C-alpha cells in the first residue's frame, strides 16, 4: 500500500556535525513498513531541490501505548537535500512517499543473522533487527565507522541481544580498521554446518568486499544498494543495477527489484554511480 504523507517533523536529534535522526509523523507508513524498505523524501516544498531523495526507514516509532506514530530517518549530510533534513526544525513538513522496495528476508533460528554496516549503512538494520528478535534469531552486528563518536545506536543493538563487532578507522572504539576484518575472522572461525545469513549495507566497496568474502565461504548475503533514484517507483529507469541473468547480465531497477539484492547476483564491476 503506497502512501504520500505531508509528515510533520516531530524531532530532530543531531548526532554529530553531519549525522542526525529525524522523526516524522507518518503512522500509516510505519504500520505497513517492512524491514529494509525505503521512502522517497521531498525535503522542502517548491522546486529546489526538485526530486525526492531515497532514505531507508530507520525506526518505526511507537507511542507509550505501542501504537505507531511515525518513522525516523538516519540522515547523513552530503548535499542539498540531506542538508535540509539535517537542519530541519520541529513543525517543518516533509513529504514522505512509501514504503517502497523489496524488504529484507529475516532468517529463522537456528540460522544466525549477521548484519554488516558501514557508517550510515546502519539505517536499514534497526527494522531488520526487530524482525529477527521476534523470530528469536541470534544476531551479530559488524559495524564500522570513522570513530567511536560515529558508532550510533550500537548499544541499542546490544540491548536487543546482538553480539557486537565494532571497528573504527581511528581505533577509538572496537578494532582499528575496516569492518570486514572482524567479519572475515568470524567467517573463518564459524563451522560450515552453522547456517548464517549475511546482510550488508554501506559504501559500495564494503558491500562488494562482504559479498566476495561471503561467496568465498559459501554464505549468501543480502546487500542494500544505494543507486541514484529519480522516482523510486519504477517509472524512470535511473536506478538500474547490473545483475547476472543466465550467461549475460541485465540492468534491473533497484527501486522495484531492490534495494535489497543477492550480493552474488550483482555484477560489481559494472556497478557505477555511488
Amino acid at each position, binding site marked *: 500500500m503506497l502512501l504520500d504523507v505531508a509528515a510533520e517533523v516531530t524531532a530532530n536529534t543531531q548526532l554529530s556535525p553531519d549525522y542526525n535522526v529525524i522523526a516524522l509523523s507518518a503512522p500509516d507508513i510505519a504500520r505497513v513498513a517492512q524491514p529494509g524498505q525505503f521512502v522517497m523524501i521531498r525535503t522542502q516544498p517548491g522546486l529546489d531541490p526538485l526530486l525526492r531523495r531515497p532514505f531507508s526507514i530507520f525506526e518505526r516509532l511507537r507511542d507509550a501505548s505501542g501504537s505507531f506514530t511515525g518513522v525516523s530517518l538516519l540522515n547523513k549530510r552530503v548535499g542539498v537535500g540531506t542538508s535540509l533534513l539535517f537542519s530541519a526544525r520541529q513543525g517543518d513538513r516533509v513529504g514522505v512517499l512509501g514504503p517502497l522496495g523489496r524488504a529484507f528476508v529475516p532468517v529463522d533460528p537456528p540460522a544466525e543473522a549477521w548484519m554488516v554496516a558501514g557508517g550510515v549503512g546502519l539505517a536499514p538494520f534497526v527494522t531488520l533487527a526487530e524482525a529477527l528478535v521476534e523470530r528469536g534469531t541470534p544476531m551479530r552486528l559488524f559495524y564500522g565507522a570513522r570513530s567511536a563518536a560515529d558508532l550510533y545506536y550500537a548499544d541499542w543493538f546490544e540491548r536487543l541481544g546482538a553480539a557486537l563487532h565494532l571497528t573504527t578507522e581511528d581505533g577509538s572504539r572496537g578494532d582499528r580498521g575496516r569492518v570486514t576484518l572482524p567479519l572475515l575472522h568470524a567467517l573463518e572461525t564459524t563451522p560450515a554446518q552453522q547456517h548464517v545469513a549475511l546482510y550488508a549495507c554501506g559504501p559500495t566497496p564494503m558491500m562488494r568486499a562482504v559479498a566476495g568474502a561471503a561467496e568465498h565461504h559459501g554464505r549468501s548475503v543480502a546487500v542494500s544498494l544505494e543507486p541514484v533514484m529519480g*522516482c523510486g517507483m519504477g517509472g524512470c529507469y535511473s536506478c538500474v543495477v547490473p545483475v547476472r541473468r543466465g550467461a549475460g547480465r541485465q540492468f534491473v531497477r533497484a527501486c522495484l527489484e531492490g534495494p535489497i539484492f543477492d550480493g552474488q547476483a550483482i555484477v560489481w564491476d559494472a556497478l*557505477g554511480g555511488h
Partner: protein
Amino acid sequence: MADLTTRIGSLTLRNPFIGASGCFGYGLEYAGAVDLASLGGVAVKGLFLEERQGHPPPRIVETPAGMLNAIGLQGIGVRRFVAEKLPELRRLGATTIVNICGSTLDEYCEVARILSDHEGVGAIELNISCPNIKEGGIQFGCSLHGTFDVVSGVRKVTTLPVIPKLTPNVTDVASFARASEEAGADAVSLVNTFLAMAIDVETRTPKLSNVMGGLSGPAIRPIAVRMVWECFQAVKLPIIGMGGIATAEDAIEFLIAGAAAVQVGTANFVDPFIWSKLTSGLDDYMQRHHIARVADLVGSLNIPAKAHA
C-alpha cells in the same frame, strides 16, 4: 464537473492528462498510485523491435528546476510488450499510447505493424526526438525529410493514430509540425527533452555516463509553451503539449497555448499522486471561468494590441 474530455484525432481522451513516455514506466508501475482508467492516457516507455539494455548509470542528474536523463531507451522490445504488458493495460482500462523508436525507417514500420495487430493500442507516438542515442531517431527528428519519411512510412502500415514527437533542439519547430501534417500525422506531441550536459568539476568528467542527456522539468516550461504556441499557429493538427508541467495551472498554460492534451513526466516522479490534483484543478478553473469544454480553452490565448509600443 466540467467536460474534461478532449480529442486527439479519432481518439477521445477522458481528460487531457497523459503520463509522459519514459516517465511512467509501462504504466503498470503506477497502478498502485492511480487508477490508470482515470487518466487521459498512458504513454509507455519508448520501444524498439528488440530488447535494449540502455546506458550504464549514472543515468540522471538533477539540475536547477529540472533533470538530465540519458537512460538510453532501456526496454523490453515491442513483442514482449504486447505479450506481457498490453493485456494488463487493457484490463485496467488504460488508454495506451505506445511510444516507438527505430534505428531505421523499416524498424519504425515493423514495430507499428506489430502494434496494429493487437487490441488495446490507442495511438502510436513516434519518438524521433530522443537526444540520448545516436540511433534513436534523432537523425529523423532533426531533418524535415526524415520526419516526413518516418511519418508517411508508418502512416502507410497502420490505421492507428500516428503522433510524431518533435524535438525542441531545432531552429524552427513549427516547420517540423508542418512536415508531420503533410505526411499524414493525426497529431504532434512536443517537446521532447533539450540536449544538455552537466560536469562534475571535482573529477572534470561528465555527470552522465552518456556525456549528454535530455533536460526536462519545470526549467524548460517557458520554452515548451512557446513552441506549442508556434506549432498551434502553423498546423491544424491537434497538439499534445509537454515540458515542465507540475501543476494544473501549468497544464492550463499549455492548453491556452494550443495543446489539446498534455503529458506530464518529471513532475510525476516528484508526485505520483499528481493526477487527481491536475483534473480537479482544471475542473475548478473551467467552472470558475465558465468554460464548458476543453476545446473552448485550447488555443484561446488572446494577444492585446500593443497599446503603448
